[in-house]
């Protein structure tokens, strides 16, 4: 009988490592990033519901159990607190668990483990015990889902010290960020924009894996008249808005935060000092959302550079609406344009 350890390392018949630059969907880019991380470090393991033979409901873990075995790609019982709670114990034993929460609205049974345990154990033990746990959460709307399948709960986690909260907006970042999240000794909430899973882009599969994407925002598009701050699914909306503004002769700079904890305020402030206007876009409710924090800090740091108040475009203080109404709730190009118009009216 083979031992578990032997089975853990079974990789016979595995495909050759991917290399070079390929055109991949965002979901496939995460899949390749997971594969690369698992090949690099045999302590990396995946845990979640339906992530094995099924490959996850979005197929992000497709083929990984076949390559790495049941001990490293674990179909868990249907209990999210258990997924995160046992991941904590595995991390204490030296593993690097990557948990999949099936949908945004299902993270709440694990909320206690994430906010009272995962986020605090490193601090509670004065650095003696690290928590290299990644929690992947497909989030955001736009796919016509039922209740709890379109929400954006990221601010709830950014409000908790000890957690890193990130969200990729494009396939290349998705590929790099998932690997940097797994390599991080800190717990990372990895929010995957489900409406962008199928969007394709070029991915350099040999791109270096460092720590930049967990800490630094990136300028997606240069501009001079207004800064559009976004992350995750809203970056594409911001870029489309900038294109529309360009036709009107207005030059928008688009900043992709990538992380909301930490918040790369240096990048935001540098851009807003240049443009004098700032509009923050996210799918989450604006009320107590990431945009509120950004607006407050921009006001503090850029007061004399501002031509207009910082404005926010995002979800309303309502439950995430029924699918028939979700496109009225989500920040659309039209609503961002409206906010930009208001900023210019000052």
């Amino acid at each position, binding site marked *: 009988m083979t031992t578990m350890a032997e089975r853990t390392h079974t990789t016979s018949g595995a495909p050759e490592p991917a290399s070079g630059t390929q055109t991949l969907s965002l979901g496939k880019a995460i899949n390749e990033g997971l594969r690369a991380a698992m090949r690099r470090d045999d302590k990396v393991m995946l845990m979640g519901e339906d992530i094995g033979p099924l490959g996850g409901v979005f197929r992000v873990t497709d083929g990984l159990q076949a390559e790495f075995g049941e001990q490293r790609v674990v179909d868990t019982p249907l209990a999210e607190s258990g997924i995160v709670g046992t991941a904590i114990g595995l991390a*204490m034993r030296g593993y690097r668990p990557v948990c999949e929460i099936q949908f945004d609205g299902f993270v709440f049974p694990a909320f206690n483990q994430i906010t009272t345990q995962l986020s605090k154990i490193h601090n509670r033990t004065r650095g003696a015990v690290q928590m290299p746990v990644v929690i992947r959460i497909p989030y955001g709307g736009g796919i016509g889902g039922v209740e709890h399948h379109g929400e954006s709960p990221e601010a709830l986690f950014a409000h908790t010290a000890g957690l890193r909260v990130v969200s990729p907006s494009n396939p290349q970042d998705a590929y790099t960020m998932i690997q940097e999240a797994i390599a991080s000794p800190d717990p990372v909430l990895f929010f995957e924009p489900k409406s962008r899973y199928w969007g394709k882009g070029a991915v350099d599969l040999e791109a270096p894996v460092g720590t930049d994407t967990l800490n630094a925002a990136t300028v997606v598009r240069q501009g001079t008249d207004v800064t559009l701050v976004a992350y995750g699914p809203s970056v594409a909306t911001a870029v489309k808005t900038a294109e529309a503004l360009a036709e009107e002769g207005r030059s928008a700079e688009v900043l992709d935060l990538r992380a909301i904890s930490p918040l790369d305020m240096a990048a935001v402030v540098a851009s807003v000092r240049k443009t004098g206007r700032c509009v923050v876009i996210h799918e989450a409710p604006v009320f107590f959302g990431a945009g509120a924090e950004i607006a407050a800090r921009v006001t503090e740091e850029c007061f004399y550079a501002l031509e207009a108040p910082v404005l926010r475009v995002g979800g309303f203080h309502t439950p995430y609406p029924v699918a028939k109404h979700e496109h009225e709730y989500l920040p659309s190009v039209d609503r961002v344009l409206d906010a930009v118009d208001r900023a210019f009216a000052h």
Partner: protein
Amino acid sequence: MTTTNGSNEAIPTLQLLDPQGNRVTTRGSKGYRDRAAALTTEDLRGMYRDMVLTRRFDDEATSLQRQGELALFAPARGQEAAQVGSAYALRPQDYVFPSYREHGVLQVRGVDPVDRLRFFRGSDHGGWNPTEHNAAVYTIVIGAHALHATGYAMGVQRDGTPHDKHDGTAVITYFGDGATSQGDVNEAMVYAAVNDAPVVFFLQNNQWAISEPTTRQTKVPLYRRGEAFGLPSLRVDGNDVLAVYAATQEALERARAGGGPSFIEAFTYRMGAHTTSDDPTRYRTSEQEEQWRRRDPIDRLAALLRAEGALDEDFEAEIKATGDALSAKLRTGVRALDGGPVVPSMFDDVYATPHGTVAAERAWYEAYDAGEPPAPQYAIADSAQGGAR
């Protein structure tokens, strides 16, 4: 022995030592009696010493709280046999996940007694390095750590640790009767069961979850919760250190040998208050307390030792001297504990790697604390227009 749980139903309970300290035989207890019989006189004296010292620790900590030196304390009085007996069955490579009242377990595990009070002093959220003792720090959210124990045990499985009743590795998690109602404890048993994880669920049923009796938690004897998840489950007299030791040793050996998880209900009593902030007179009778005082676990082991000629004046004097030294150490050590300087203490170890928000707030606080002009909150080279705080 059988006891009843507020009903007429007799509940099988393993007992090897009756309340008068006599070794007793009950049906099905032979294997356990053999395990207890393997304990030497020195082992029994060691257990007794640790139980007495655990109570001494309790008394001293309670006094320190009354003197304002601790913010809070949760005494373990009455549960010394459950804690010390189970901890004696552990081997160094095993890993402990306590709740927050397992002072006797940590006594046996060798965690410094002053470190065990850092949390209650308000100078630390933990107090010791878990990796030095294979013992996690206290977890205050009830039952949350049961999942950590199961996960840790799943890691042991993946390490390819040998399946051997001595050289394998087992995990034990301690929790109370109230915690059995928590989802996390139940999820932990689900995960442990389907994974055959080497973890022992050690319930100290001390009858009270602060003010709520076990009738507010369950309709069935709690050991049957373990059975329902497919775990070998046993109720033991939690004030009988021999029964606790034997049952825990059996469960740990099963876990180390690859036999999967087990559940033990140690039926005991919280003789003291829930914490120093609690007032048990509001919810339980002195008759009940008196009934359990007659079942004191320390008296019971003392009676056995005396009957077996192992508790003489010299040994009692030695324990007394050790206890006095412990008290003195606690009085001095606890008063010397503070939280350390705010910087770096408060800002350190929030993250393992640099986090811009924490770094900026730390820098701001340092400037503020030093009476310097407040620095811009963000490290921005060009602060000519910004930073107008």
